């Protein structure tokens, strides 16, 4: 598993999100952030611009 994000950079992310964390929560979420980094690596890949998400909406019947 990769090195955890730096405290400084993670502190910026926490502040931007508006979360008020205890030191214990900060430390735990900083460790957990490595899973977020892995998820982002998995889904961020070159794609054709036409590779759209699926998006349909079924209108309720009258």
């Amino acid at each position, binding site marked *: 598993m990769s090195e955890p994000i730096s405290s400084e950079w993670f502190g910026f*992310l926490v502040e931007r999100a508006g979360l008020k964390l205890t030191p214990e929560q900060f430390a735990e979420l900083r460790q957990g952030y490595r*899973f977020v980094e892995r998820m982002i690596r998995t*889904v961020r*890949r070159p*794609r054709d611009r036409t590779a759209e*998400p699926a998006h349909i909406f079924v209108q309720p*019947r009258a």
Partner: protein
Amino acid sequence: MDPTQLTIAEASRAIHSGQLSPLALTEAYLERIAGLDGELHSYVLVLRDQALAAARARTDEVFRGPLHGIPIGLKDIYKTSGIRTTAGSRRYLDHVPDEDAETWVRLHDAGAILLGKHETHEFAIGGPDFTLPFEPARNPWNTAHYPAGSSSGSAVAVAAGLCAGAMGSDTGGSIRGPAAYTGIVGLKPTYGRVSRCGVFPLSYTLDHCGPLTRTVEDCAIMMQALAGYDSQDPASADVPVPNYQAALTRRLNGLTIGVIRHFHERDAVADFGADSAPSAAYVTAFDAACRTLERLGARLVDLQLSPLIDYLDANRLIMLAEAYALHEADFCERPHLFGHHMFARIALGAFLSAADYVEAVRQRRELAVEFARALATVDVAVSANSTGPAPRIDAVSTYSTFERASYTSPYNLTGSPALSVPIGFENGLPLAFQIAGKPFDEAGVMRVGHAFEQATEFHRQRPAIAASLPLHQ
């Protein structure tokens, strides 16, 4: 005869023939709950008086159908009018809704009786958490062990004979994981097949509602009442509902079944490390289950898909983003109301960007198309569920959800129907596999699950605690 040992189908026949009354059946379940649930913690609320009143009414009524007088329970994220619904959280500890979940309306109208509300991980994600007001449910096969979640109480209650069937919800495996660890049947229907109206959401585009039962036939009975269009649910699909019980057969002649082996044989260890390796007993049980399907007349072929992690991380990223958006105001303004696991897991969603989310939903479509093409060559697919027995409940860590391979969430991502069925035991704890199908082909997956059940005895085995009470007189 102890009526709580009967399946829904058996109890229904006994009620219809007059050999058993809904009142006697309800009283028997309430007696078992009083005797056993102090150890199992599967209920957060037992509705004794309401259940008895409903049972008396059902006893005096004309028979409505196979759910007439059948006592069930609801995961405590299903809203019940006038009855406390907590979502397993301090945030809603005193919440009494003024509406019923559409699924409960349909089950009620079919004649079911509500015994109570089942323990759930907080908002269907944060558990097992000993910092919450409700004790986490325990696995009835060994109470030191985890029953999985988040529909923990629902699965435990069904497995221990504390209700005949139950409703769970499934965003990454929260019906099928608990079904696997407790040795029962759990179905995640197709996205859009069963209404989510009146159920606390976790992740709008991944949430599914579905039943937990002791047999596939019971699952078919519950699905008959549950399935169908609901204009109140924006994701509901207006697709005809077949006769599920009529689709059940004992043979599988002419069927082609795809086997997805690489998820558990290769991908789990490659992407999540040696801790995610399937146990030897699991591999043996999975292979034996495949041979049973062949003996029943099916032709088996291997299916190759993208690596498991592509499905899992897209599912988890979407879930985190959607769940955080739902709870953001409370996370920023009232974080003390959340349990430790819920906060530590879902707060990670705060650190995702809009582009991350869009990339994940683009990947979802690619994988859904890939899975649809693979399924076009077969009738159904089978794949692993949890690849070993339930761990001890005190060994489940805060980030266990993200640390290990999950075999259930690919079908949340694709929206496919997926059924968990028991396939064996390891150290006295149940093992299971999944049968997944084409969109809206719940009948197809239940047909395969039922035929497998009829050829095996795993679903007939009950935890010792389920038989520990004197027979109801």
